[in-house]
């Protein structure tokens, strides 16, 4: 046992098995118990696009300090089938404690495994009542190693299975207790102790994932219409809002396809709703013409895009930041748009809320760009503030002579809706006059194109500035956007570099003016992205003229880990220009 591990304030637990083996149950139990016990928790998963079988894993970090990124290191590993150890071989070290039935799990045991709690999980479970109790016994072992409060754990188990009959609940409690004593015994014998100190403030925190954070943001942003077609990894938002639709008076509809989804949303927005669609790259590709329509008829819509690796169907359940250029260019013709890319769950909440205001104010499509890693990761954050959730839809009561496409100084036509006031409200996908009737007056066409694009001036002025982490007098600047916020932050913490700062963008288009100033100050710039062609680097070059020479790119479908990011930053900074 290394002394490192004994002092660890941060424990990394991985559960790995086939879909359908109950990984999720163990994850939920542990994560909620950790959270209720006052620890910081982070959990993320990587899984295959199948309902049964395969090899999936959940990585949980429990910590005395904030943890919100993936770590490669595994302290406790629970492999639920024989392929699990092979699947995670690169992440297993001599410090990893592996729990399981050695004979069954470890056919080709990686040689680096030094600590094995050899428990006949299947036999134990059978004695209690069947194989289904394996995962709860295992959760008990993990709790025992960590010396969590057993009574609390039993209560969590009871709550978790409250819908089941009494006998099942009893057997699950028996399972957790038996597992606990095995884990406790092992940890006493081997002298393992983790230095986990509960954090008092954490009790006012909530444990949510990316999909829920976007969903909460949408509800707080006044979303009252949602139309979408299910597509991984964006479906979580559709599910979350649908489940709460009645309470929050949201008309939520599963459309027949993505084309219908965006067009329904535009219909609802035209009539005065705050509309949301949620999709992934393939779905967004189908929505292209609808996005262009939003630009032409100057009708607000918020579009959440959870990215996954493409092209085409790609890797449906994996992560990537490969659709920035798609979102930037989706829809033919020229019209303004805003692209927001939350880095933290707090961002996801506040930016989604803000997206509805921006969409209504400028009558444009606003994109929220996330990814599978972001959607499926959860950790504790302070409960969002819901005091100020009053929506201003920027709607006017129309007069008799109302013109929906009135040419104004700032390009924004007062927004009327049908049935509110005396005027008639028309919108047209053809080029149109101020009353939105078809025109082929080419001078008017020029004026209308300019009117629509003029809105970009104000949009740019109000762009959300990037966030600088680290010294103001940096020499090295690391650039990231969206979901890589925490992993880059933690990697830099680990590295402890003096003259290196991190600039994180949560608005990626249009870029705020200060972008250039930040970039020009640095001697050396490194950009990190989850794609193969450094799409954000290209956008920065286009917008600022600055060429970033060093890139850290990953596009195998898995998220960056802290260790990997630290190593790559270090390597990039050491390289000659």
């Amino acid at each position, binding site marked *: 046992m290394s002394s490192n591990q004994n002092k660890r304030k941060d424990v990394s637990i991985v559960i790995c098995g086939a879909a359908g083996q109950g990984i999720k149950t163990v994850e939920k139990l542990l994560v909620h118990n950790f959270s209720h016990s006052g620890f910081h928790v982070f959990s993320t998963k990587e899984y295959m696009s199948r309902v049964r079988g395969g090899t999936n894993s959940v990585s949980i970090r429990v910590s005395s300090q904030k943890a919100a990124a993936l770590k490669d290191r595994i302290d406790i590993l629970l492999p639920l089938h024989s392929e699990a150890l092979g699947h995670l071989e690169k992440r297993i070290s001599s410090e990893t404690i592996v729990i399981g039935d050695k004979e069954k799990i470890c056919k080709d045991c990686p040689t680096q495994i030094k600590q094995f709690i050899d428990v006949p999980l299947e036999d134990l479970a059978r004695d209690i009542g069947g194989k289904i109790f394996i995962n709860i016994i295992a959760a008990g072992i993990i709790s025992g190693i960590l010396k969590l409060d057993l009574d609390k754990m039993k209560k969590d188990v009871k709550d978790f299975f409250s819908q089941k009959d009494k006998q099942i609940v009893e057997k699950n409690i028996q399972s957790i207790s038996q597992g606990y004593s095995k884990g406790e015994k092992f940890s006493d014998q081997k002298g393992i102790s983790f230095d986990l100190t509960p954090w008092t403030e954490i009790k006012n925190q909530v444990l949510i994932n990316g999909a829920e954070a976007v969903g*909460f943001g949408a509800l707080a942003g006044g979303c009252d219409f949602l139309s979408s077609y299910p597509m991984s990894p964006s479906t979580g938002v559709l599910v979350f809002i649908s489940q709460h639709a009645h309470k929050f008076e949201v008309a939520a509809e599963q459309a027949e396809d993505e084309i219908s989804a965006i*067009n329904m949303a535009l219909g609802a927005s035209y009539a005065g709703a705050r509309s949301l669609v949620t999709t992934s790259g393939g779905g967004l590709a189908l929505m292209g013409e609808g996005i262009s329509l939003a630009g032409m008829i100057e009708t607000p819509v918020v579009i959440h895009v959870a990215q996954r690796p493409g092209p085409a169907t790609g890797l449906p359940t994996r992560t990537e930041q490969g659709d920035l250029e798609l979102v930037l260019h989706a829809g033919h013709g020229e019209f303004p748009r805003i692209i927001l890319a939350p880095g933290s769950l707090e961002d996801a909440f506040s930016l989604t809320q803000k997206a509805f205001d921006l969409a209504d104010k400028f009558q444009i499509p606003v994109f929220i760009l996330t990814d599978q890693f972001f959607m499926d990761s959860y950790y504790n954050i302070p409960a969002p503030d819901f005091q100020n*959730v009053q929506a201003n839809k920027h709607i006017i009561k129309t007069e008799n002579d109302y013109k929906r496409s009135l040419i104004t100084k700032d390009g924004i036509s007062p927004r009327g809706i049908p049935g509110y006031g005396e005027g008639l409200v028309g919108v047209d996908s053809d080029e149109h006059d101020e009353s939105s009737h078809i025109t082929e007056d080419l001078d008017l066409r020029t004026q209308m194109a300019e009117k629509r694009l003029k809105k970009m001036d104000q949009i740019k002025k109000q762009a959300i500035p990037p966030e600088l982490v680290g010294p103001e007098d940096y020499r090295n600047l690391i650039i990231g956007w969206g979901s890589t916020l925490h992993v880059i932050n933690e990697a830099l913490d680990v590295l402890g570099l003096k003259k290196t700062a991190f600039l994180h963008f949560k608005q990626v288009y249009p870029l705020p003016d200060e972008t250039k100033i930040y970039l020009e100050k640095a001697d050396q710039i490194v950009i990190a992205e989850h794609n193969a062609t450094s799409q954000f680097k290209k956008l920065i070059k286009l917008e600022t003229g600055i060429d970033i020479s060093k890139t850290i790119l990953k596009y195998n479908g898995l998220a960056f880990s802290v260790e990997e990011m630290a190593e790559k930053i270090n390597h990039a900074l050491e390289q000659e220009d």
Partner: protein
Amino acid sequence: MKTNAYDMDDIDMAWCPGCGNFNILKSLKKALAELSIEPKGLVVVSGIGQAAKIPHYFKTHFFNGLHGRALPPATGIKAVNPQLTVIAESGDGDMYGEGGNHFLHAIRRNPDITNIIHNNMVYGLTKGQASPTSQFGFKTPVQTKGVVLEPFNPLALAVSQNASFAARAFAGDEEETKEIIKKAIQHKGYALVDIFQPCVSFNKVNTFKWFKDNTAYLDDTYDPYDRRAAFEKSLETHPFALGVIYVGPPKNTYEQNIGLYDKDKNPLVFREQKRSQKLQQLIQSF
């Protein structure tokens, strides 16, 4: 109300002289006037094509969207403001070709909208290619040997999917077309009105006379509530039946199924959202 309540002054219409669209516009205005539906209570949603230009030619709110995509916005509008009368109107290419999937699912979803299709069995705006309803053997510059695809049968499809209301009209008969449109608008739920219409420029086969010779009104003994009979009727050609072919059993509309209008009739878009407390409560469970 008088029909001139919908008249617009000084409009430059893009329809050919003698086009069936003019008759349909007249019938529609009369129907609306007789039902006292004011322009400010009406939204006409259309796609792209000659027929889809109709909301530019009379007073109404309008959403002239994308090719084939009239039904989704119409559904969205109705969901958030059911007080509006919503008509989704376009041609056969738009509604049955480009927008075929939406047509299928609008029938299933059953929003309380009227779906009017100007069916001239040809593409007008793109100058004379086959449409989904073009008849076998119809020759065009693209279908040089004549159409070989099975003609799309909107009425049979609607009946097979248990549409709430399905009718066929003929633009040559303004009075009857008006009556059918009135019934469709008054019907609660999705209502299909397929209107046969001659295209004087690009369809020299299915002319005014052809439609006249190949259609016949349903007689008084016909029972539109009998689904099997309606399906049989919808399969008949030469003559094609005119009138209300099918009325489905009473069922909830899409807006009712949303479940947000049971107690509060106020449209969603006019409701004052009070979400602070609800959000506070919800987050506590996380």
